[in-house]
């Protein structure tokens, strides 16, 4: 049963920008900061309509995170923005002490995550941020899959109290989720119900998983596809319910295999219900320059790769 409709292509970061525009009009406590990447983060409309609620920090991300923490003390809901690489690894300790340990209501919103950043290459292609952020106490970690979901997540985070890391991307990708969805933090979205395999996907890999599901259907395999947009807190109930039915798992993410969604799922399975699992993820490697499509193919993050891993994991079922 299909629960999605492909409409058009749009970048997830525009979903963030349009979510911010809406928040600018509806929530006077929302403020945003940016470290010299306003054009990339698509916040121009928010800034134009609410110039007093925007703070340009220049190329100084550590300071940006600290200022965001301080703004919460006066009751504001800051969204510091930059590329995912500079909003996670570069400022890990600032996030850890001033935001997470201090439990400040900061919504770190970062674009250009993963390989699909493309031609800029490995210096900018963060593939470790989910691991860093999900290991941090107090932190909520969200990696939405399309324009509509990113917009809805952006808006939902303003009503959530506590630190959060919202990760999205650069390229235009298919829009297939409901434009009027209500985003529930920590609640997985079942895209397709199936009985032969559980495919858990996050971010840009959700569309690839959907494509894989169609190829698998032609081969007579009934895949259950579940979108894990919130990696922390993880919807363990949805994961276990699905795996108890299908008895095998493929996890899909634009991230290192080490410490990402796959490991979060494996941790859940190891403690509750053992089942074979295959990872569609980057295998302990840095990226490189190339087009997003080339990179996703080369590093095994495509629909074809998901099909291959699915066949493998089904064969492993005892």
């Amino acid at each position, binding site marked *: 049963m299909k629960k999605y409709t492909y409409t058009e292509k749009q970048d997830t970061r525009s979903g963030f920008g349009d979510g911010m525009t809406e928040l600018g009009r509806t929530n006077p406590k929302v403020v945003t900061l940016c470290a010299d990447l306003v054009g990339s983060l698509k916040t121009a409309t928010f800034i134009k309509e609410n110039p007093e609620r925007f703070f340009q920090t220049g190329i100084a991300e550590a300071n940006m*995170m600290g200022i965001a923490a*301080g703004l919460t003390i006066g*009751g504001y809901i800051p969204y510091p923005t930059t590329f995912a690489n500079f909003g996670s690894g570069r400022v890990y300790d600032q996030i850890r002490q001033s935001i997470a340990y201090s439990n400040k209501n900061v919504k770190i919103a970062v674009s250009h995550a993963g390989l699909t950043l493309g031609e800029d290459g490995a210096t900018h292609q963060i593939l470790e941020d989910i691991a860093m952020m999900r290991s941090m106490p107090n932190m909520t970690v969200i990696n939405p899959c399309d324009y509509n979901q990113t917009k809805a997540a952006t808006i939902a985070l303003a009503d959530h109290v506590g630190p959060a890391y919202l990760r999205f991307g650069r390229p235009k990708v298919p829009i297939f989720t409901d434009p009027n969805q209500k985003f529930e933090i920590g609640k997985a979205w079942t895209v397709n119900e199936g009985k032969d395999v559980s495919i858990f996907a996050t971010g840009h890999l959700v569309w690839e998983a959907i494509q894989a599901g169609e190829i698998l259907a032609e081969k007579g395999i009934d895949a259950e596809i579940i979108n894990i947009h919130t990696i922390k807190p993880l919807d363990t109930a949805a994961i276990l319910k699905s795996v108890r039915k299908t008895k095998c798992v493929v996890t899909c993410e634009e991230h290192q295999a080490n410490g990402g969604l796959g490991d979060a799922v494996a941790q859940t399975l190891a403690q509750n219900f053992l089942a074979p699992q295959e990872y569609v993820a980057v295998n302990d490697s840095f990226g490189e320059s190339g087009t997003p499509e080339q990179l996703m193919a080369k590093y095994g993050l495509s629909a074809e790769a998901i099909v291959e891993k699915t066949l493998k994991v089904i064969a492993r079922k005892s």
Partner: protein
Amino acid sequence: MAIFVPFTIKIDFLMQIKELEDIASQVRRDIVRMVHGCASGHPGGSLGCTDLLVGLYFQQMKISNRKGKGGFLSFRMDGVNEDLFFLSNGHISPVFYSVLARRGYFDVAELSTFRKIDSRLQGHPTTHEHLPGIRVASGSLGQGMSVAIGAALAKKLNGDDRMVYVLMGDGEQQEGQIWEAAQFAPHHKVDNLVAVIDLNGQQIDGSTDQVMNNRDLKAKYKAFGWRVMEIANGNDMEEVVKGLRKAKRISGKGQPIMILMNTEMGAGVDFMMGSHKWHGIAPNDEQLAAALAQLPETLGDY
């Protein structure tokens, strides 16, 4: 130009200074007793900044006197219509905790739990244990001024005209984030911010001149766009109080204020002064007794 100061006002001021000095003496006793009690912690910088924190919390800063449970000050995280203080060099937590307790945020008896298991008085300040008076965790250096700037911006957005104070160490000036914040505050005209650098010239590995020379901090901050002033002796209560008043007076004019405050690490305990050795070690029983003999008990030990 001579300014006529009525005699009675002068006397009142001197009495205030005497009162503040008495509080500072008790705070210094608390500091050495706290670090002795857990055989760890940072007495040197705490003693050096005692006069500043007492001057801020008992004289300069406007703090709501609304009382809550147990007769202690009811602490509001947002600090609306209050002056705020941030301690960036969080390792001098003993002076912060003592001043907060003596000011009425919590029971002074709790000072005995410093750095011990299950305490709200962690080695470095934190909001995690919900100790009243603390607004952000600090200890990993270089972060406090950024947080203070954020709080100052929030005050402006809220139309709240109170001030934000932040204290940093001089060794801490070696952190890169400080200079990110230093360029932000003048650029965005954060003129409700008063930053203080504790110039004691010492850090863990030796004197700051030897470890990593800060050179001319006055020239640096001026070049970044700050209004820079000095407190020549940060261990003279009258100078501290006058300096803080001046900082407030010259604020609100489009520039953040930087106070370069000379202090002596270990001030008030003769054998802890004049070197970096007491940065992060606790006195033994004998040394504690010798220290306490130099510090009159004015408000009663915890």
